[in-house]
């Protein structure tokens, strides 16, 4: 008998598995359950982008690309970041194409964090930062963002958590799951704290195109921040391209050289067909973004109004495509709420504690669904609340 428990990596074993698995098991045996649980667009990738991928296959472009990614794509990526956010990066040394933003985040953390380094992570947030930090032997330090601060990271909170061991600040805005964003003035206050320290920043801007009423600002565009910031972006959310697995990493050349070294040994290069599709997306996809963002915005308002009407307090999200209502008034824990909602009304939503302890007392509902779907789901949630 193999004693797997003894053989497996202690570090990996200690990482908590994702908390939503058990909901899958319930949904799997349930007929006509409906979901607000996804983390991706409901649009199919626009046809001209898919067509560019198909075209590349027809032309036989089936080889590895350069480790950094096609130069043509890096050039388009740099042009895109300049056009949309005023950021300047050199395509030949400051841009890397990865397998989703996910790989970019992982590689960047591995390239920056040494054992014992502290990494500041605003929470609630996307789930990958903490495990990546742990695998590098770093120490995750959560910072709880609060609804009364519109789920922003404040300079005061940041200052309180900085120690001589602080290596990296993760900035996950626009935020999954809260919908919070950081405006230019908020970022300036953060920059004021960070400038003059040795702290680096990993800015996960994967939802940068999905803001409502205010254009996204990147922290790398603030004075003195470019040289200490790695920007993660990608096409998954902005261009409805989650399955293509293309991420974009931007940063100073000395950092990107190390990040690319990991990418080179672990991945070789991002999928070639996806890179060709991405060239088309970045070159001619701005109008697709606008259309999809407009649709999300209407659904956002509809869902927000729905939660308000049923008496669940809910921050009006300003970015991404999630709503994070508080369910504290029901007296249930997030997981109990979600499990009962699923069993009794057949609606799947994600418990807030999946995004960090500070998410307890909330649920995450995605509005990347059709208006009809959202209306049915909201009716069922309202019915559920009426029974409690």
């Amino acid at each position, binding site marked *: 008998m193999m004693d797997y428990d003894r053989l497996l990596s202690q570090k990996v074993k200690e990482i908590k598995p*994702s908390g*939503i698995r058990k*909901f*899958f098991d319930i*949904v799997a045996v349930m007929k006509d*359950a409906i*979901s607000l*649980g*996804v*983390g*991706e667009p*409901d649009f199919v990738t626009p046809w001209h982008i898919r067509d560019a991928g198909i075209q590349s296959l027809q032309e036989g472009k089936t080889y590895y690309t350069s480790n950094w990614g096609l130069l043509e794509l890096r050039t388009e990526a740099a042009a895109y970041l300049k056009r949309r956010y005023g950021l300047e990066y050199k395509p030949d040394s400051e841009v890397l194409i990865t397998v989703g933003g996910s790989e970019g985040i992982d590689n960047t953390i591995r390239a920056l964090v040494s054992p014992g380094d502290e990494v500041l992570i605003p929470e609630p947030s*996307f*789930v990958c930062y903490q495990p990546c930090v742990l695998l590098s032997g770093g120490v995750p330090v959560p910072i709880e963002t609060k609804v009364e601060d519109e789920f922003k990271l404040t300079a005061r909170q940041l200052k309180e958590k900085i120690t001589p061991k602080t290596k990296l600040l993760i900035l996950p805005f626009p935020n*999954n799951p809260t919908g919070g964003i950081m405006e230019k003035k908020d970022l300036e206050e953060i920059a004021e704290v960070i400038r003059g320290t040795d702290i680096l920043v990993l800015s996960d801007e994967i939802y940068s195109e999905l803001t409502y009423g205010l254009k996204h600002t990147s922290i790398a565009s603030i004075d003195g921040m470019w040289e200490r910031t790695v920007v993660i972006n990608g096409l998954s959310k902005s261009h409805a391209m989650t399955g293509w697995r293309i991420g974009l990493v931007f940063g100073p050349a000395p950092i990107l050289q190390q990040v690319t070294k990991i990418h080179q040994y672990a991945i070789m290069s991002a999928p070639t067909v996806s890179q060709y599709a991405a060239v088309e997306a970045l070159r001619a996809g701005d109008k697709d973004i606008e259309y999809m963002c407009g649709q999300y915005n*209407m*659904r956002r*308002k*509809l869902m927000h*109004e729905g939660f308000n009407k049923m008496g669940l307090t809910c921050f009006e999200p300003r970015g991404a495509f999630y709503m994070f209502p508080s369910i504290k008034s029901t007296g249930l824990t997030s997981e109990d709420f979600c499990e009962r909602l699923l069993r009794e009304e057949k609606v*799947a939503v*994600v418990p807030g504690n*999946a*995004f960090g302890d500070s998410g307890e007392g909330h649920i995450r509902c995605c509005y990347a669904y059709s*208006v*009809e779907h959202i*209306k049915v789901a909201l009716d069922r949630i309202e019915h559920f609340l009426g029974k409690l």
Partner: protein
Amino acid sequence: MERILKILEENCRITDKEIATMLSLDESAVARARAEYEKAGVIMGYKACIDWDKTEDESTVAMIELKVTPQYGEGFDKIAKRIYDYPEVESVYLMSGSFDIMVLIRGRTMKEVAMFVSTKLAPMEAVVSTSTSFVLKKYKENGVIFRKEPDDEREVMGL
């Protein structure tokens, strides 16, 4: 306000209140705009889109290309009116290209359509020739693809 039209074009059963929420407008403003669009004939109706092939109904649709001699002083309008007044006629278009008028007709059977063409359309003195093609299968009409909505293939939950 054309955003209201875009929403209604997708789904005309949505309420004024829901449109108002989605566009951050007053419900009364939406109701007023809708009434004006109706009055001005911008909104021409709220019809269901029906795939008759899935019902017992056996009706058939044909496209008929007509070559006609335009009439002095009236151009094609007079002959077009004579055609579109027939209730069997669903659509009439004046065309550029190798023929002049396109007529869409719905009839119960192919025979009925053929009879209509030979007894009503072909004898009109302005009509020089007709060419009838029957629709065998409908794939997409007015932006609606005629197949079952594909299932949502996304994972029920994702982080």
